[in-house]
């Protein structure tokens, strides 16, 4: 608890957060899948360009158990602590809440007193998560105004659903219970976020645990059994309001990025695959006549490829799908970053007009057939840009290459190695790889990145700029 001022990483509005000092450290979920004896870890990376350790791993905190599959972790508190109806601004952004997607275990990791040496403060065991929340496979963390919200992909037993959202207490991290009072038709879960001033939550759909834990089920994809809906919820009453079916041919509705500016009522959803032509797409949701509506605003086509170069699931299609698996929106709501994990591209779109995105930049690293190298890497690279994180000022974007262990192995069967790279962003758009920044994690794979003090996918702002 602070006394004289709120935690200085909290900002009332997104525009104020854009002026935050540059991050000096990053936290990366690193996975040792396939080495059942070695646990996953949280790696601390030096991001200060003036430091002698710039672009190096300065510390690795191993988890006490193996096989967690650490995923989209987040902070215990963020700018939502300033929200006017239940403010607690003297709480600190201090703990990383790190869920194990495979184990259903949740680690609470303390980044103080030495942010370079985080330590485990609490472990919420899978039994407790399941017993108290009714869910398993925790996936995404968001710090809400009244609690820490966690999305979960499975029900508390077996490999089925429904998946949903549960809450952790802000202060002692106890599991408070499931969030939904009325889930309506929603069964599948993946990502979630909200328009906080509209009292609206948005959720997306992947699949049930049995549909991804041993790799994607190709019959289910072809039969369109994965998620293709967006769900809108009343946050106050915790009730399902509206489903938007993007179309049965769309499979996997992944990341959701609502505009950060609280007076704006639109956002972006990434769709991994269209069964029609293997393209990926970005959809813009918005208000229309008192309801929510969504329209496809970006389509990224598949690239034709020689079947000999393709992994087994793609050979018959003779093409590499872009596989847009993560998107991220800068805090000024101007640039949307889109990772094409299949083709090995990171794209930058100017989304000042959210209905008319404009491609403004592109870099290539990895890719199923392209295998593009990095100026600092030795030889071709496997995997592609996947988890993206943007600095608060929007000038630096970090990305890593692993999606999910068993899915990595399906599309990059030659044992993907982990890496992390960075682009520098020009003020008016356009970006270039930082030739000094490339971290080779070897056989350890890399997933979510969080930046010291906050980033573009952890904060919620209650006050308009």
């Amino acid at each position, binding site marked *: *608890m*602070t*006394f*004289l*001022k*709120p935690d*200085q990483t*909290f*900002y*009332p*509005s997104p525009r*104020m957060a854009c002026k935050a000092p540059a991050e000096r450290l990053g936290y990366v979920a690193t996975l040792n899948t396939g080495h059942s004896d070695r646990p996953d870890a949280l790696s601390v990376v030096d991001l200060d360009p003036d430091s002698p350790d710039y672009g190096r791993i300065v510390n690795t905190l191993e988890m006490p158990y193996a096989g967690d599959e650490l995923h989209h972790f987040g902070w215990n508190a963020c700018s939502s602590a*300033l*929200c*006017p*109806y*239940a*403010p*607690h*601004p*003297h*709480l600190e952004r201090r703990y990383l809440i790190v869920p194990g997607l495979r184990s259903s275990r949740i680690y609470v990791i303390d980044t103080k007193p030495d942010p370079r040496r985080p330590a485990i403060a609490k472990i919420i065991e899978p039994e407790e998560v399941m017993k108290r929340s009714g869910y398993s496979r925790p996936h995404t963390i968001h710090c*809400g*105004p*009244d*609690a820490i919200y966690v999305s979960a992909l499975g029900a508390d037993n077996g490999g089925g659903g429904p998946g949903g959202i549960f809450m952790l207490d*802000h*202060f002692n991290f106890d599991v408070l219970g499931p969030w939904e009072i009325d889930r309506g038709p929603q069964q599948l879960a993946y990502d979630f976020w909200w328009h*906080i*001033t*509209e*009292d609206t939550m948005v959720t997306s759909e992947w699949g049930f645990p049995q549909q991804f834990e041993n790799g994607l089920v190709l019959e289910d994809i072809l039969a369109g059994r994965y998620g293709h809906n967006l769900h809108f919820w009343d*946050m*106050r009453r915790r009730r399902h309001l509206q489903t938007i079916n993007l179309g049965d041919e769309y499979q996997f509705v992944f990341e959701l990025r609502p505009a950060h500016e*609280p*007076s704006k009522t639109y956002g972006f959803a990434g769709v991994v695959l269209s069964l029609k032509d293997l393209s990926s797409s970005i959809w813009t949701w918005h208000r229309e006549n008192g309801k929510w509506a969504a329209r496809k605003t970006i389509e990224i086509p598949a690239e034709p490829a020689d079947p000999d170069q393709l992994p087994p699931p793609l050979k018959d299609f003779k093409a590499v799908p872009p596989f847009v698996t993560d998107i991220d929106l800068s805090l000024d709501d101007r640039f949307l970053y889109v990772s094409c994990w299949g083709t090995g591209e990171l794209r930058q779109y100017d989304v000042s007009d959210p209905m008319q995105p404009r491609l403004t930049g592109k870099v290539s690293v990895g890719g199923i057939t392209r295998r593009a190298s990095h100026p600092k890497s030795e030889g071709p690279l496997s995997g592609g840009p996947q988890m993206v994180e943007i600095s608060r000022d929007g000038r630096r974007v970090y990305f890593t290459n692993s999606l999910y262990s068993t899915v990595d192995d399906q599309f990059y069967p030659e044992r993907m190695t982990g890496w992390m790279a960075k682009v520098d962003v020009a003020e008016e758009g356009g970006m270039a790889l930082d030739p000094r920044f490339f971290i080779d994690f070897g056989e350890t794979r890399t997933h979510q990145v969080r930046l010291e003090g906050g980033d573009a996918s952890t904060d919620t702002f*209650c*006050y*308009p700029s």
Partner: protein
Amino acid sequence: MHPLTPSATLPDLMGGWAMMIGFGAYHGLNPGMGWLFALALGLQQKSERAIWRSMLPITTGHAASIVLVAALVLAAGNWLSITHLRYTAATVLLVFAVFKLFNTYRHPRWVGMRVGMKDLFLWSFLMAAAHGAGLMVAPVLLEVGHATAGPAAGFISGVGMLMAILLHTTAMLMVMLVTALVVFRKLGLAILRRRWVNFDMIWAVALLVVGSTALYHAARMAAA
């Protein structure tokens, strides 16, 4: 033992009124009690009128939670003597203060910014009740009610207490409105980052101080 004559001298009574006004100003200044929500609504709707409009429900919600405490005090007067009432009010306040001291950050769970008049009233009532705004003023309210009791009205005057609550909420309203308007027009949101002291902790300490003082006062009056 209902004393039939007012027991307080005029300066004591003036002190009671002044304290009610002071507490009102203090509650009005607490960001968790209303001005911040009003400001946020003003900013969100890009209209200063939204701030003005939210004042009535926030003030009446706050007042309602204190009226509730006053009603409890009045009801308890049927069974307890003024001495016992003083001790009871002080003790309850102290117990609550200790609880708050160890749970300074606990708030009622409320999510929602699309609020109408009814919601704001309810929100303000909940915030005041949960933070013990009524409890904090209960000892003073009791003294004012006691001091203004006429010969026919028992030893606590409900009207006197209502007057005190009216003064309290008027003071709260003024401070709340001015604070919200000054931040809206002049200071801007940056003030939230720079000048927001830990009101929750100060609040808990204030409860403790008022509770201790009330206990001391109860003992002194009992001895007199």
